[in-house]
């Protein structure tokens, strides 16, 4: 059974990503905060007696369900359908270019001037916009697998789908992001 300290530590560790992940889905900060709050309360109230190691996948499942409930309540479905027929693009070369650009973005320096900071923020905002624009299942798989660092099996359990589906969603998400960011001028 998770102690109160373990529960608190887990919620502190996950809260920012949970909020961001929900904002990407619902595009509304206040709604995202309500959803995250409900998910935290539901986790603590119903599953607080579980071992600490079980809390991450349970919480992500609760958060996903709470987000779906929000959409159902609003009767709005923000499904983003992309034409996936060309999402793979050239055979990895452009993805390599994107990797090089992302590497330079990831190395912040205290010596960055105001212009460089503004450029960095703009780039981060672009990346967030494209993550938010992914189809819901691709975004969920990508964030759980790579941001929450779940393995494939944990991601499949949290999403209620097969491991094969997780791999497909993740692959499509990464390629869709690479393509979208190339089209917006990153990685050229």
């Amino acid at each position, binding site marked *: 059974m998770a102690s109160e300290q373990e529960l608190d530590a887990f919620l502190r560790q996950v809260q920012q990503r949970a909020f961001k992940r929900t904002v990407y889905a619902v595009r509304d900060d206040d709604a995202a*905060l309500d959803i995250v*709050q409900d998910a935290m309360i539901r986790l603590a*109230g119903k599953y607080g007696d579980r071992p600490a190691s079980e809390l991450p996948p349970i919480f992500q499942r609760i958060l996903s369900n709470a987000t779906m409930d929000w959409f159902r309540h609003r009767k709005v479905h923000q499904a983003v359908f992309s034409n996936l027929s060309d999402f793979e693009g050239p055979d990895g070369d452009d993805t390599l270019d994107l990797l090089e650009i992302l590497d330079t973005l990831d190395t912040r320096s205290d010596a960055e001037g105001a212009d460089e900071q503004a450029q960095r923020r703009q780039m981060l905002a672009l990346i967030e916009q494209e993550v938010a624009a992914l189809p819901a299942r691709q975004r969920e798989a990508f964030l759980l697998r790579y941001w929450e660092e779940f393995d494939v099996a944990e991601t499949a359990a949290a999403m209620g789908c097969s491991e094969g589906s997780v791999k497909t969603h993740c692959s499509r998400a990464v390629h869709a992001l690479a393509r979208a960011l190339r089209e917006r001028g990153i990685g050229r």
Partner: protein
Amino acid sequence: MSRRDSDLLEARVAARLTALLTQAAAELPGGVDARLRAAREQALDAARR
């Protein structure tokens, strides 16, 4: 490019993107930190009941 190389490249790109998402998440809009703290406290209250 082999399937293995493609998988490795995918993982590397994903790792870079999520590192940047973490940077973006560290700069939350005003008031969000306080609301998340309040949400956490309500959750801990729920656990105690």
